[in-house]
């Protein structure tokens, strides 16, 4: 029933590569649907406790949607960028739903110690990743007001699991720029997250 997709995805990717930014918005729902369907299937197969392997999901989605006709390497990078945005939405939706389920429908803010628990070496058992993801999504919206490129870098790197090179390719900047932006964005987001949590106290 999705027979029409491969061709249109190919077409849209070519458009995207040619610089037609509108193709991104057209692609997003297609990619979102596919990723969402696959993620659901994966979650049904395995215990809901298991984390999603986003990289594998995205790659599989790519093969399904665009893989039939020997697409170009550049197309793959552009696909990954779309998938990163879709993945962000999917993961945040899951996280919200799981928070809600845990807290009996009420969404809860993250506590400061929970942010610290998520630091390496911290005790992981508190299981606050969902809350952290939701908080991160909100911080990312704030970053978007300040620095659009850094937001895209975070989407690609963090949610899309993309390499520096792939990210650089789709954003049309140098890998060094991606590296710098990624480093600064992490500091910005982490500080913002902490501040948001501290204000709540």
């Amino acid at each position, binding site marked *: 029933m999705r027979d029409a997709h491969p061709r249109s995805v190919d077409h849209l990717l070519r458009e995207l590569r040619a610089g037609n930014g509108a193709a991104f918005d057209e692609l997003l729902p297609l990619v979102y649907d596919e990723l969402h369907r696959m993620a659901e299937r*994966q979650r049904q*197969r*395995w215990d809901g*406790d*298991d*984390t*999603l*392997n*986003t*990289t*594998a999901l995205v790659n599989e989605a790519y093969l399904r949607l665009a893989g039939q006709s020997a697409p170009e390497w550049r197309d793959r990078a552009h696909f990954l960028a779309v998938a990163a945005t879709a993945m962000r939405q999917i*993961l945040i939706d899951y996280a919200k739903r799981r928070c809600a389920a845990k807290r009996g429908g009420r969404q809860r803010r993250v506590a400061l110690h929970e*942010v*610290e*628990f*998520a*630091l*390496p*070496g*911290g*005790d*992981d*058992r508190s299981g606050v*990743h969902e809350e*952290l*993801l939701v908080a*991160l999504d909100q911080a990312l919206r704030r970053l978007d007001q300040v*620095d659009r*490129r*850094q937001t895209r870098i975070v989407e690609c790197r*963090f*949610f899309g*699991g993309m*390499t520096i090179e792939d990210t650089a390719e789709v954003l049309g900047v140098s890998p060094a*720029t991606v*590296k*710098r*932006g990624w*480093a*600064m964005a*992490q*500091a*910005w*987001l*982490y*500080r913002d997250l*902490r501040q948001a949590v501290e204000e709540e106290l």
Partner: protein
Amino acid sequence: MTGSGGGGPEPIDRDTMEVLFERARAMQPEARAAFLAEACRGDRRIQRELDSLLAHAAEAEGFFARLAGSLVSPTVGHSMGHYRILGALGSGGMGTVYRAHDTRLDREVALKFLPPHLSAQPEARERLLVEARAAAALEHPNVCTIHEIGETADGRPFLAMACYAGETLSQRLGRGVVPPGEAVAIAVQVARGLAAAHARGIVHRDVKPGNIMLCADGTVRLLDFGLAKLQDVTLTSPGARPGTIAYMSPEQARGDPLDRRTDLWSLGVVLYEMLTGVRPFRGGNDQAVILAILHEQPPSLARARPEVSERLAQTVRRLLRKDPAERYGSAVDLLADLASTGGETAAIPPRSTSRIRGGILLAALAALIAVAWSLAQRHAGDAREVRRLAVLPLANLTGDPRREYFVDGLHDALISEMSRIPGLVVISRQSMMRYRGSTEPVPLIARALGVDALLEGSVFLAGDSVRITVQLVRAEPEEHLWAGSYHRGLENALALQGEVARAVARAIHARTTSDTASGATPLLVSREAQDAYLKGLFYQERLIQASDGSGARATIRTAAGWLEKAVALAPDWAAAHARLARAYHWLASYMQDPRLADEYYPKSKAAALRALELDESEAQAHASLGFVLFNHERDWTGAERSIRRALELDPNSHQWIYALYLLAAGRTGEAVEHFRQAQTRNPLSAIISQQLAWAYACDGRADEAIRELTELRARLDDTPGWLRSNLATYYLEGSKYPEAIAQLETLAVMVDSDAQSLAELASAYADAGRKDAARRLLARIVARDGSWYAPELYLALGDTGRAIATVEDALETNPNAFLHFRCSTIHRKLSAEPRIRDIVRRLRYPS
């Protein structure tokens, strides 16, 4: 909100901020303030913002790495390399642990992924991995076995550990206190594991219930040796302490240097907790816990658990002394005391669930074995297809780069043992070395080398013993055909090589000729002798792999020195004599130095003869003997007999020497054939390509010589000088003057006025009819030195007499240069001249 520098010429944009952030990040914190003040040109707002971001940078990276680690962690059903993830085993401070199936060795393992941000600190990571490898070399029934320390495709380090049925002590404690007898039995086993580790200088640093595995069979195993330090690295700020500080020793809490007594403290805390169900040092927050560890005495054990004997309570008190000097000096001392707590050392009662689980496991195991057996039967048929095999460089898991020679030596020995298998073509070591540490997929490597199967493995050293693990993997479809693991004392390391090789041979359904021969080193030689032998082989290999001749003489001398030592230590060891013969014949021939030739050809012959006296099946000795016979003694029939015997014994290694023989004997067509055979075994070797091209040229096939070198040039990253000059020679042969001159002119510029290339250029000019240019160059060369290449030039200029005289001169000084002369253009051009025929006769070469 405009900064005071807002009126400056260029406001600082986000791009500049990113650059400044990156630079400041790389600096020492003390240097940052001055740098930022300067760089922000008085823009206080930007300066404050960068300062604040930098203050969060370290924690931010850790935070994202951790969060991302949970997002992209491997999921059930996915494969990481040869591991297929079966499910999560649990998660702890170091990240999630997965249950996985090792598809190569067909066993279940636990996979632990180390935090990805470790890769951002390569030095620290390397140092810690070395330590983890040292811990991995620890084999003890009370220590969890680490099978492999590897890296995922994206550079994330992971550990593959043995997977044990059972539960952690932490899980056990969740069900309540442990009876004293059982608690002591657990402590005894933990102490045994610690004693073994401490004896090797490994401190655990993180003994806690979560790291103590109570296996279903009643054994207790310590997990995560050597990992605590990895965890320390992740502590990027004082605010981020690991979750489990309750088991830290006072010295650890203070950040003092640690020794084995820190582990004894932690074991004391664990023992206390097992007995009472609570931790001895508690507090509402981390600081309070640390204060208690540093300054408070734990509540009396006797009061909490009256049934605990005073003796045991005393032991626990001593383990928990603040001053390490007042604790037990070692885990062994502790063991003595624990043993004397008498009746309390009851065994850990096997739980009924464990027994049932054990039963299920056994049944599952039996099923697995049955499947594995039937697979093996199926593969046995397919395995006949293995006709060309490559032995990948063995992974050095010894954790000690100085052991490289040992690992390399084993690799070499494996290749030569495998080469004895009739009908099997084994790719030479030289072509394999580029795959050292490679993560290229098997099918790709196989395609590059044109092989059906790859043998890969690793070497593990633990004290006086060595463990070799080998796997035979068929390339397409990628399938694991066979695996074996060999564990021996170092004394037998060489016998072990033969054993591994023969086992693989059986697996691929071939019979080795060495089944009955004595060449498989059943001879027991001392460890020193083996060591010297392996070092000798290592340096010989280094020479073969060197792309240029630099340092060659020193390298061969070093190799010869080690082999001389091996021979002195084990005078009856045929293999060592044979390798020494090779080192000597290289010394004699490689340098083109007549004095070395006179000294080392006889030595090489003597060593070869001694080797053959001890073991007639030493192929290398026959080959070396043959080399000496034709190159030095001009005994052409004897040489051919020896080399053919070497080929019969080991068809893989000595094609090359035979080809050289044929070339020297003027049998150029046959030489081409044998160089080509040598090349199929050594497809990536530049030297063989070079010589094959040479043989083509001698055989009058200049076009093929050019094709060979052009292909080689495409394979190499850049074009070495010799390749250009050889190519030019063959262009000249084929009368392609413009091409030749183009190469030679580049060369003359590349290697400024090098006599050899200038001479070639001059003769190219001459051949191309540009005699004036040739003469000018010739004058320059002759003014510098009477080069070997001059005769071709004289010939090109039409002065045949002087050309011949130059040849006579050169051969008078160095008769060993004849091989080169015989295969040179000038020989072909002059071979009909009576004076040249005379030289050939005088030097006793077949005409």
